[in-house]
C-alpha cells in the first residue's frame, strides 16, 4: 500500500492556450515517465481532434514518480481536466478527485474569465491553488504584472509562483518541487468502507467500461463486489490499476488517497456516471460523496446521414461514441425533408461540433445537421408543460399559453477599450446587464444574463472578433425565463421544409427569416422553373426571395473528340443531383440545410 504522505493528486487549470498541456508534457517528461523521444507532443491530448483544436475534451490522467530534492520518491497523479465551458461539470468532478491545483497563467495575457471560473471551481472544492506563470519566454511577457493580477483578482499569494516556460522547460523543476511542498498529501481512512469518486469512464472493447476513480476512503481490489450509489449498478471488480502514459498498469489494490482505474465487466458507461460514488456492495459507506448530478444536454440538433442508406451506420457510430460519452444523448426522429435521423443532445455547441466531426472523420459519415436549438418549455393552455427540442414538435400556436427559454449567467472579462462593443453584442443578443467591476485598471468583468439560444451559434466567435481576441467568456445555466418565441418556417416552392424550421425570439424573426431566404437563394441551384423561397411565422410570410428559372444549360459543342469528356460532364452533373434532397419538385443541396448555422458569418 502506498504511503499517503508520498502521494500528490493534482490537476492543472488554465485558460485555453495558456499552456496547460505543454506543462503537463514537461512534468511527465521530467519525472522520467517518458523520455522526450517517446513523447508525442502533448501526451495528454490524445485524440487527433484535441491536438488540432488545442483543447482537452476528455479528462486524461497520468501517474508518474518524482524523485524530489529531499531524496524521497513521490507519486504524482496528474488529472487533466477538460478545457471548455461545455464540460464544466466534468471539470468539477475532476477537481473533486484532486487535493490541489496548479493554476497556469499566461505571462502576457494574464487572468482570463475562464481562469477565474476554474479557480473558483477549485476553491469551491477546497483545493489548494498553486499559481504558475508560464510563457516567460514571450517578448510581451510581464510576469510581475501577472503575479500582481493573480493576487488582486483571485486573491491568492503569487509572489513565489514559479515563472516558467513550459515550452523550453525553464524553471519547471521549481514547479515539481512546489507540488511536493505546496500540494497537500491525501487523507482518508484506508480501513473504512470503500468510498470512491468516479471522475471519468471510457469504454474499451476488451475490458468493457474502465472507470477512472479517486479512492477517498477504504480500498478496492479485484474480486470485490461493488455498487454505484446513484445508478444502483453492481459489479464484481475484475482489475484495479494505475495510469501509465497511454497504458493501463494493473495493481493488486487501490486504497484511500490513490487515483486509478477499475474494470468490472460493466458494459455501459451510463452505469458509471461521472460524479457517482463507488462503494462496496457488502459493506457500503453511509453517505455518497457530495456533488453528483445527472448531466443534461443543453443543445439539441438533428443529425441525418447524407445518404439515407447510411442510417444504420450512423446509429452504430452514435452508440459507440456514447459508450465513451454518457453526456451524448440521441433518439431516432424522422423529417419529411431529411428522412431518418437522430435528435441529439449535447452539453454545448463545442460538444456538438466535436461529435459531428468525430462522426465524419472516425466513422466516415457524410452528415446533414439541422440548426442547433435549446430545450424550450411550452406551457399549454390546458395547463400542461411540454419540453420541446425539435421545432417540428411545437404545438399549434393556439394551444400555447406561453413559452420559456433557458437563460445563463454569463461572465465576460474584457479589456476596457472593448467594453462598449461587447456590451453592444450582449444587448443585441438580448442580454440583461447585471454588473460590471474593474478587476484591475484596464480590465473589467461584465456580468449578463443571456438567453442560451443566443449564445449557442456564434457568440464566442463574435466575442472574439469584437474584442480582437481579448475577451473571455464563461457561463452557467441559471434557469428558465418566459420569452416571446415563435417558430420560423421556411417554404421552398410553397412547401414547408421541416428541417429548416427553427424557434426564434419574435422580434428577431424578420431579420433572421430574411437572411435565411437570402442564404438559401445562394445555395439552391436554378431549376427549370422559378422557385419562391419564403420565411413564415404562423402562416404569415415575412420574407421572400426567388431562385430564377434556368435559362440555358446546353453544351455548345459535341464532336467526335468531345464525346467521352462531355458524357462524363453530363454524368457528373447528374451525380451531383443525386446527392441533393428532393423536396417536392425542388432539389436542395445538403449544405443548404446547414446554411442557417452561418447566418451571422458575414457580420
Amino acid at each position, binding site marked *: 500500500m502506498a504511503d499517503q504522505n508520498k502521494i500528490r493528486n493534482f490537476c492543472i487549470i488554465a485558460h485555453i492556450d495558456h499552456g496547460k498541456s505543454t506543462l503537463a508534457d514537461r512534468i511527465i517528461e521530467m519525472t522520467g515517465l517518458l523520455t522526450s523521444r517517446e513523447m508525442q507532443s502533448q501526451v495528454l491530448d490524445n485524440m487527433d481532434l484535441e491536438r488540432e483544436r488545442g483543447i482537452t475534451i476528455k479528462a486524461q490522467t497520468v501517474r508518474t514518480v518524482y524523485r524530489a530534492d529531499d531524496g524521497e520518491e513521490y507519486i504524482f497523479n496528474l488529472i487533466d481536466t477538460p478545457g471548455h465551458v461545455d464540460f464544466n461539470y466534468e471539470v468539477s468532478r475532476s477537481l473533486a478527485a484532486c487535493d490541489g491545483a496548479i493554476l497556469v497563467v499566461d505571462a502576457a495575457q494574464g487572468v482570463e474569465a475562464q481562469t477565474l471560473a476554474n479557480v473558483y471551481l477549485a476553491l469551491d472544492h477546497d483545493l489548494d491553488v498553486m499559481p504558475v506563470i508560464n510563457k516567460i519566454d514571450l517578448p510581451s511577457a510581464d510576469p510581475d504584472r501577472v503575479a500582481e493580477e493573480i493576487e488582486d483578482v483571485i486573491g491568492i499569494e503569487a509572489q513565489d509562483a514559479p515563472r516558467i516556460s513550459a515550452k523550453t522547460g525553464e524553471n519547471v523543476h521549481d514547479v515539481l518541487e512546489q507540488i511536493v511542498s505546496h500540494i497537500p498529501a491525501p487523507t482518508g481512512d484506508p480501513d473504512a468502507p470503500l468510498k470512491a469518486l468516479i471522475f471519468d469512464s471510457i469504454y474499451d472493447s476488451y475490458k468493457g467500461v474502465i472507470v477512472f476513480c479517486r479512492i477517498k476512503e477504504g480500498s478496492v481490489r479485484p474480486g470485490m463486489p461493488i455498487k454505484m450509489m446513484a445508478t444502483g449498478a453492481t459489479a464484481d471488480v475484475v482489475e484495479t490499476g494505475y495510469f501509465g502514459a497511454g497504458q493501463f498498469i494493473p495493481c493488486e489494490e487501490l486504497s484511500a488517497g490513490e487515483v486509478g482505474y477499475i474494470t468490472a465487466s460493466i458494459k455501459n458507461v451510463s452505469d458509471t456516471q461521472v460524479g457517482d460514488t463507488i462503494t462496496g456492495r457488502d459493506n457500503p459507506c453511509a453517505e455518497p460523496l457530495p456533488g453528483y448530478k445527472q448531466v443534461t444536454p443543453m443543445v439539441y440538433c438533428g443529425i441525418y446521414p447524407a445518404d439515407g442508406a447510411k442510417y444504420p451506420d450512423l446509429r452504430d457510430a452514435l452508440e459507440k461514441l456514447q459508450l465513451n460519452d454518457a453526456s451524448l444523448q440521441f433518439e431516432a426522429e424522422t423529417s419529411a425533408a431529411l428522412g431518418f435521423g437522430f435528435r441529439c443532445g449535447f452539453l454545448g455547441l463545442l460538444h456538438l461540433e466535436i461529435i459531428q466531426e468525430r462522426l465524419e472523420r472516425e466513422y466516415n459519415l457524410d452528415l446533414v445537421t439541422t440548426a442547433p436549438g435549446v430545450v424550450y418549455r411550452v406551457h399549454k393552455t390546458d395547463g400542461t408543460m411540454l419540453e420541446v427540442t425539435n421545432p417540428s414538435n411545437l404545438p399549434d400556436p393556439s394551444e400555447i399559453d406561453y413559452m420559456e427559454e433557458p437563460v445563463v449567467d454569463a461572465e465576460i472579462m474584457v479589456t476596457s477599450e472593448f467594453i462598449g462593443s461587447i456590451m453592444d453584442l450582449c444587448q443585441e443578443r438580448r442580454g440583461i446587464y447585471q454588473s460590471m467591476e474593474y478587476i484591475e485598471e484596464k480590465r473589467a468583468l461584465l456580468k449578463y444574463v443571456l438567453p442560451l439560444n443566443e449564445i449557442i451559434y456564434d457568440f464566442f466567435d463574435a466575442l472574439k472578433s469584437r474584442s480582437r481576441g481579448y475577451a473571455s467568456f464563461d457561463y452557467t445555466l441559471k434557469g428558465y425565463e418566459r420569452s416571446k418565441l415563435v417558430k420560423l418556417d421556411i417554404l421552398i416552392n410553397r412547401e414547408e421544409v421541416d428541417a429548416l424550421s427553427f424557434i426564434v425570439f419574435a422580434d428577431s424573426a424578420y431579420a433572421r427569416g430574411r437572411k435565411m431566404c437570402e442564404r438559401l437563394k445562394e445555395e439552391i441551384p436554378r431549376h427549370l422553373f422559378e422557385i419562391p423561397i419564403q420565411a413564415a411565422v404562423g402562416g404569415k410570410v415575412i420574407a421572400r426571395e426567388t431562385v430564377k428559372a434556368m435559362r440555358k444549360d446546353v453544351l455548345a459543342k459535341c464532336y*467526335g473528340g468531345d464525346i467521352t469528356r462531355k458524357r462524363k460532364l453530363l454524368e457528373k452533373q447528374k451525380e451531383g443531383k443525386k446527392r441533393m434532397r428532393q423536396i417536392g419538385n425542388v432539389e436542395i443541396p445538403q449544405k443548404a440545410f446547414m446554411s442557417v448555422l452561418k447566418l451571422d458569418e458575414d457580420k
Partner: protein
Amino acid sequence: MEEGSVTNGEPLELYLHIPFCVKKCAYCDFLSAPATDDVIEDYVGVLKQEIMQKAACVSERNVTSIFFGGGTPSLLSSMQIMELMETVRKAFQIDPDAEITMECNPGTVTAGKLLAMKVAGINRLSIGLQSAQDGELRTLGRIHRNADFLSCYELARKAGFQNLNIDLIYGFPGQTAESFSKTLREVCGLLPEHISVYRLIIEEGTPFYDWYHRDAERRDAGEIPKILPTEEEEEKMEQALRKILSQHGYQQYEISNYARQGKACRHNIGYWTGVEYLGLGLGASSMMDACRFQNTSDLSEYMKEDFSPREKIHLTGEMQMEEFMFLGLRMLCGVQKHEFYKRFGRDLMQVYGRQIRKLSAMGLLTETTEDVRLTARGVQLGNVVFAAFLKSGI
C-alpha cells in the same frame, strides 16, 4: 490492328488533327500550340506514316468524309496539304462524293494556298472568323482582323470553293447584342453555305478562365464591372441570332449549327448519328467496332510513331443507345424511331419511353409517331435532356 474486323463498304469518316497554330486564342483549350516549321514538317511525315499504317486495316471501308481540324490546319504549306491528301487518297478508298473539309484561319492563307487546297481535293472550308468586329477579335486573341477574313473569303470563292462555313462565337467579354447583330448581318451578307455559332464556354487552362476567376469576388460585389454579358444581354443576342439567320434563309439543324438547304455538315452529322470514325494525328479520337479510343496527346510520344490506342472504352449496347439519343437529339430533326429500330432492333419507346414522356411533360421534347426532337426550350436546356438518357435514368 486489334480494332480489326472489316465490314466491306461500310461508311467511315476520317479526322486528321493538326495540333499547331500561330498563337493560342484566349478561349482555346484544344490540343494545339505554336511550333517551328521543322516540327510541323516532321509531324506531317509521322502523320503520313500513321495514315498508311492504319488504313491497312480499313482499306475496304468507304470513306464518306474527311475533316482536317486543329489547331490551324491551314497553317500547313501548300506542299504539305497536297502530300497529306495524296497519302490519304492512296491509303483509303474515298467516296467520289465525299465531303472534305479543312479548318482555316483567315490569317494563314494566300490565294496560292487556297488553290492548292482545292486542287488537293478539299471541297469545303470552315473559316474561323469568330467576330466581324476588330476590337472583339483582339479581345479573343485572334491573329486576324475582319479585313483579312473578307479577303480570305473572297479568295476562297475565287479558288472555286462552293461550300464554306463561317465559325462565330457569342457571349464573350465586351460583346453586346448590337455588335453581335452587326457581325451576323455582315456574315449573312456574304451568303456562306453554313454558319456555326458557339456560345462561349470558359474552359479551364485558358487565359479567359484565369481572367474570369481572378477578381470574381470583387466583380460579384459590383466593385469592378462584370466581364461577361449579362443574362439579359445574352438573351437578346440569341433572339438576334434566330431572327437574322432565318431572315437570310439559314436553318438551324443543330444546337450551334445553321445551314442553307442541303448544306449541313455531313461530317458532323456522322458523329451525331453513330457513323464510325478514325482519328489520325496527335490526340485524335476514334470510334470503331463499338470502341472509342484516342491517340497519345504527348507530341514526343507521337513523333516516335507510337500510334497505339489510349483510353480505350468499349461501348456496351446500352451505352451505344444512350449516345445515339444524346448525340442524335442535338440535331433539331431529332431521333427517327425507325433509325433507332434499324440500329438496335428495339423499339425506342420501349427503351426510353419513361424519359421521353417525362421530358415531354417538362416541355423539353416533342414526340410524334416518326421521331423525338427537342422543343425550342429543349434546345436551350439540352443538357437536362441529354443527361436524362445516361445510365440510371431520371
